[in-house]
């Protein structure tokens, strides 16, 4: 089984270049068509907002495709970076929402309401720079990147990897969520930072604003996909895959494996942070429920379901898992956890290459068959053919 994954991964994007690149571009085109045209045209504002929310998780999944799918580094703490990015954004928005006039009934006007409830009388020092939009926008990627850099350098330079890295990142997710919940006065506790209203006077809560944010988010997402594709296409991308499959050999060839790992981990953190900030802007709050262990590991499943090596697949995977999560937890709340568990097991045992892999092995052949039949139907021959076996067996098989 491992042979199959690694073998297929090595081929992916590396050897059969031109045709593969064209297929990937096609896949991105189809996704763009869905995200930019189909969803906004068909869905009502509420549903569109939900898709927008799911698409912010897709940033995390993209990061995981880079660092886990290609680099072999499984981080179970991506929620930390998503959350930090989101909190940086939320802190700015909260400060803007709690100007002295609208918070006049508090005992200390001008500070966020939850601080007032926790008997704080002045703004904590680390909140102050977040009055500036420029600083906040800078902090959104910078703070998570800095944390990722520290973790990455400390771990990878000492050649800690694999399951140890996974466990330690998971513990970091636990620590951060305990910290946020524990320091209510600074962070809003379990409820998180809520009641965000405007961005530089621009009301975020209207349908119109949400629609614009949806498109901004989608543009950023495709920017992230392009960035990911570019990184994977460079020598660094090749090194990543090589490192995943035979780390020692890469090291003996004279490359500094640790630097490559640190880079891809920081990149994944930055992507997650952008997703977190976009989440805050679109949904209007940020809470520790996106930081801890459970959300972090669920984000891994988004990437795994999509196909851990496929950037576009990660977006589809995120959409699919979240859609089914919303659907099942509304209709059959008991079933959802079992389904989620089965998904974890299935994605590992039955279809380790996720949706992208399923498409490669079944979808493309099916599409080819459909296209052929459609072609026949349109040219008028379809009607004359007596109904027999639906498609010749040779069509079912993908082209060699």
């Amino acid at each position, binding site marked *: 089984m*491992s042979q199959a994954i690694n073998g297929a991964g090595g081929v992916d994007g590396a050897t059969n270049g031109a045709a593969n690149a064209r297929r990937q571009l096609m896949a991105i085109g189809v996704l763009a068509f869905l995200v930019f045209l189909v969803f906004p045209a068909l869905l009502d504002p509420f549903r569109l907002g939900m898709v927008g929310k799911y698409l912010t998780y897709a940033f995390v999944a993209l990061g995981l495709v880079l660092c886990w799918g290609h680099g072999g580094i499984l981080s179970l703490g991506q929620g930390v970076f998503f959350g930090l990015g989101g909190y940086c954004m939320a802190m700015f928005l909260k400060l803007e929402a709690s100007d002295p006039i609208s918070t006049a009934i508090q005992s200390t006007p001008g500070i966020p309401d939850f601080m007032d409830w926790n008997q704080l009388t002045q703004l904590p020092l680390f909140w102050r720079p977040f009055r500036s939009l420029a600083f906040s926008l800078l902090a959104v990627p910078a703070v998570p990147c800095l944390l990722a850099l520290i973790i990455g350098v400390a771990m990878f330079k000492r050649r800690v990897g694999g*399951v*140890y890295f996974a466990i330690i990142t998971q513990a970091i997710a636990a620590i951060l969520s305990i910290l946020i919940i*524990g320091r209510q006065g600074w962070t809003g506790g379990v409820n998180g930072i809520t009641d965000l209203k405007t961005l530089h006077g621009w009301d975020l809560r209207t349908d119109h604003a949400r629609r614009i944010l949806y498109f901004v988010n989608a543009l950023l997402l495709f920017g992230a996909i392009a960035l990911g594709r570019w990184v994977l296409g460079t020598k660094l991308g090749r090194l990543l895959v090589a490192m995943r499959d035979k780390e020692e050999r890469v090291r003996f060839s004279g490359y500094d494996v640790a630097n490559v790992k640190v880079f891809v981990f920081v990149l994944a953190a930055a992507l997650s942070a952008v997703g977190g900030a976009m989440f805050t802007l679109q949904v209007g709050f940020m809470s520790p429920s996106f930081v801890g262990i459970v959300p972090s*590991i669920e984000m891994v499943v988004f990437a795994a379901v999509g196909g851990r090596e496929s950037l576009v697949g990660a977006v589809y995977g995120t959409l699919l898992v979240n859609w089914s999560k919303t659907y099942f937890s509304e209709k059959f709340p008991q079933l959802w956890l079992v389904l989620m568990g089965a998904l974890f097991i299935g994605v*590992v045992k039955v279809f380790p290459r996720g949706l992208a892999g399923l498409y490669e092995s079944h979808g493309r052949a099916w599409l080819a068959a459909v296209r052929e039949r459609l072609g026949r139907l349109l040219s008028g021959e379809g009607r004359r053919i007596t109904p027999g076996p639906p498609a010749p067996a040779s069509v079912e098989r993908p082209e060699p």
Partner: protein
Amino acid sequence: MGGYSLGELKSILVMQGFNGLSLFCVLLLMALGLAIIFGQMGVINMAHGEFLTIGAYTTYVLSTASARYAPWFHTYYFFFAVAASFAIAAAIGYGVEIFLIRPLYRRPLDTLLATWGLSLIMQQAFRSTFGAKEVSATLPDWLMGSVKPTENIDIPINGMFVMGLTIVLTASIVLLLYRSRWGLSVRATTQNREMAGAVGIDTRKVDRLTFALGCGFAGVAGAAFTTIGSTGPTSGSLYIVDTFLVVVFGGAQSLIGTIASAFTIAQAQSTTEFFLTGSVAKVLTLSAVIIILMLRPQGLMALKVRR
């Protein structure tokens, strides 16, 4: 720290020390099973907490059943419950190894995800069977009450019982590992899998037994757990991260290291807990562990292993 007299401080230290020992026992009981699974096979079992819950629910079922149908038996049921917890958890573990773990030996990260999925399914199964509310086993009378050596010190009997159970269990693992045929093959497999196979040890069989045994120990931990807390569908998973840190911090292949690290973490946490709030204490302890691990990735006590 002001406001306490010297005598009171001493009592606080003793009581908190004892609380730390209770936490130490729970952590150690869970970590022991995990340590032999992780240390020997390199398998991350995220569902380990759920095996603890299996043990806890087994005890609960036996306690209610004996209270209803055989009151005379209720005094002694607990010993029976410990054995039953072990047997059931080990049997389920054996099955899990065959169906889930074995095909994934060369992909440890995938094992981690698959066992996480298993833990979700098991949690839902507990919730559907026993309800979302926490349940607690009724303890036999001899486990109730407490000992009062001085006026300010109050040591509960169930805590002492758990401690005794921990000692017995630890001793039996040490004996099994270092004085039995099975232990010999386990240690051989840990140190050099290929070579162990070459001299005729069926390493796959060793793996199966080890996994079942580790799960069985988690079941016993669950039985012990019922004496000091109530059981809910997710009570096992609350400890899983701490337990993994204990194992990693101790040095994955070292049993002594596991014991030492469980002791350090538990004591550090419960002592800081008294003076600071619970969440800050936990954050401090976990952060300290992670920082130490960053400086010394091999853990407290490392065993020389050929990879």
